[in-house]
């Protein structure tokens, strides 16, 4: 029996999702562009899936573009918007996932100017800091809704309002990949121009994501092909994947009441960990607005990797939140942005609506034992 607390990396596909994917592959295969019965049925299944993903975020189906991953949705939202824009300056937060950050760097290598907004100590950027970075030639701002390593929620509605108030034509893209499983998202309420989602973060299959695009907003496709997805992401649609995404989205909508429960389990995990292991501390303040399912903790004096192996040996699976690489001891960009000192390991536990109280107890016991083992060795090694 394993305790899976790495849901920020990927989630277990829900049984209904698996069943829908298999059923689509076995019985429902077809190309939605074909002009016969099988094609029509495929097109209907795709439309149904699109409808469900749209409903998850309060959008209309025709505003949803299916992609091959969350990363691809981010690339389309950032690079695609940039290519259709006039000005050549963009602003991103220093916390962005590589999917946004590397897209921005790619633009920078093509002559765009890029500015990174550093977060405050609590892992959130402020509205003022973003506004300060905006220039007359800014045409793109990308700020993620929730950071995948530390879980902090960015003040996106306030940011969007403030950016719009500038009066410039600025495309505001939001990476919402870590949110949709548990937080209600309303794209109209957010006031942004595009939003990226990933199916496998909400108990859907890997290999499919989606970009929501505000009606009227122009973006350029990353490559050409057969015209699917308004010609913005051509290629035969991943029908089983999209169907699975639709089912996952529908299940997530029906599980909104899990949010409080997951947050409470996460808080309980932290309460127990900090009580039993005083040397372990929260990476950002626990009162920071955060997604309910992510907990990131600091392990001063030991690298995270052996602790993770020791946890895995006790059947508890978590991740580093990418703070410390064993030999280089270089923290991740996000950890550097919030000033986590070099040589500090960090652990990320990420829950799901399927996590149980006994999972939490098992994880805490395992962490106590694992840390004891590694700290024992570290003690010997630091003489």
């Amino acid at each position, binding site marked *: 029996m394993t305790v899976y607390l790495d849901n920020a990396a990927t989630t277990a596909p829900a049984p209904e999702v698996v069943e829908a994917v298999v059923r689509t592959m076995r019985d429902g295969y077809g190309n939605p562009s074909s002009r016969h019965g099988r094609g029509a049925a495929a097109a209907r299944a795709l439309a149904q899936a699109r409808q469900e993903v749209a409903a998850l975020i309060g959008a209309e189906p025709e505003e949803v573009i299916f992609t091959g991953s969350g990363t691809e949705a981010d690339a389309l939202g950032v690079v695609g918007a940039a290519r259709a824009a006039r000005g050549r300056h963009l602003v991103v937060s220093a916390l962005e996932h590589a999917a946004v950050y590397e897209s921005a760097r790619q633009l920078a290598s093509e002559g765009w100017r890029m500015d990174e907004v550093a977060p405050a100590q609590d892992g959130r950027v402020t509205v003022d800091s973003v506004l300060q970075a905006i220039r007359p030639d800014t045409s793109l701002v990308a700020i993620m809704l929730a950071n995948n390593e530390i879980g902090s929620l960015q003040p996106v509605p306030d940011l969007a309002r403030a950016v719009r108030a500038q009066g410039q034509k600025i495309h505001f893209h939001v990476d919402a990949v870590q949110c949709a499983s548990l937080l209600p998202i309303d794209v109209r309420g957010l006031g942004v121009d595009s939003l990226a989602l990933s199916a496998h973060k909400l108990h859907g299959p890997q290999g499919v994501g989606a970009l929501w695009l505000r009606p009227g907003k122009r973006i350029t496709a990353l490559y050409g092909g057969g015209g699917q997805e308004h010609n913005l992401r051509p290629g035969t649609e991943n029908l089983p994947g999209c169907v699975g995404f639709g089912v996952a989205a529908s299940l997530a909508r029906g599980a909104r009441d899990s949010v409080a429960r997951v947050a409470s389990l996460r808080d309980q995990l932290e309460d127990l960990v900090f009580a039993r292991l005083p040397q372990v501390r929260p990476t950002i303040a626990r009162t920071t607005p955060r997604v309910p399912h992510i907990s990131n903790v600091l392990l001063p004096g*030991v*690298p995270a990797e052996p602790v993770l*192996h020791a946890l895995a040996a006790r059947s508890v699976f978590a991740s580093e939140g990418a703070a410390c690489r*064993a030999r280089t*001891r270089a923290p991740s960009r996000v950890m550097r942005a919030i000033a986590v000192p070099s040589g500090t390991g960090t652990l990320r536990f990420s829950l799901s609506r399927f996590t149980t109280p006994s999972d939490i107890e098992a994880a805490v016991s395992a962490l106590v034992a*694992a840390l004891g083992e590694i700290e024992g*060795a570290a003690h010997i090694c630091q003489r």
Partner: protein
Amino acid sequence: MVTVLCRYGELFLKGGNRGFFLRAMADNVRRAVSDMPAAQVFAPHGRILVRAPDEQREDLCRRLERVFGLVSVSPGVETTPDLAAITSAALAEAQRASTVLPAADRTFKVEARRTDKSFPLRSHAIDCHVGDAVIATLGLKVDVHRPSLRIGIEIHSTAVYVFAEVRPAPGGLPVGVSGRGVLLLSGGIDSPVAGWLAAKRGLALQALTFHSPPFTGEGAKDKVLSLLRILARWQVATTLHVAHFTETQQRLRAAGPAELAVVLYRRMMVRVADLLCDRGHADAIVTGENLGQVASQTLINMANIEKAARHIVLRPLLTYDKTETTTLARRIGTYATSALPFEDCCSLFTPAHPSTAARLSDLEAAERTLDVAAEAARLAEQCERIVV
């Protein structure tokens, strides 16, 4: 059917060695094609030939190009000792080989050789007859000095081999003719290359690696296994012994000052390798050590490590530059896997300032705080053995 002529180096073919060498060579060729059921290996008149269906030609050549001891291989056809058959075979092989010739340099030469002098035509006459046919049919031009295509014809009493390609093979000696050894294999770039070089001179190896869970993870062990599988394509080694190093490593680290740790670990590693040599009737330990690369690889430290070994320690990469090792790793196929980011030693166990000249007396003093012989014996005894 394709018949591949396998050529081996001539060095050890004087005297009594010849039969032993040839048998080992043929065995290794057989091993290289052991999972190609339609391939047959023959060793008539001191040649080594492999016959297989035509469609397996490329696969077969790729495998034979990885057999140590062979210097070149020539895929071609076998015919009867009949001029018409020889000529048509030569045309077929030349046609195939000529498709990759540059347009500006479509020249050829025929090189016939008779080991059976009873064949009616002399070599020169054969060259001309076949050459005329090639000119007439394929439109190539003769150039006896610098041809871009050489058509080889070897005439033996019962068979004739015709080929138009000579593909280089790695040379060296057949694996096994030089004895057995134990290779200290880590996930780094160097040790797999060292193993390859040792096998190239005929050493049959078993690999030994050290794993310290939970300080090293599954990924590191999988990486070593992947490297071994790549080396196995060259018949370098197929057995991996995984020593469970966690407790011993901690005890060694605690036994003395931080600066001695790395040399202490390596002294223990060669002791375990010694015991595996004893068990496997091997006579050498092979390492990827290089002169001066990291603190533990200075002359003094190497000497101190070696003093803990009873068997000879071979260091094929001792004088290689990193760039040379990397180039070779790419050729062998291990570079990309070695570059994967799985640490084979946790940062906790690698001190910030390892000594470049550990004193033997200090090392021995540290080792006296444990029973090194018992530790080594336990490690060797409890190795996990994996065959790929």
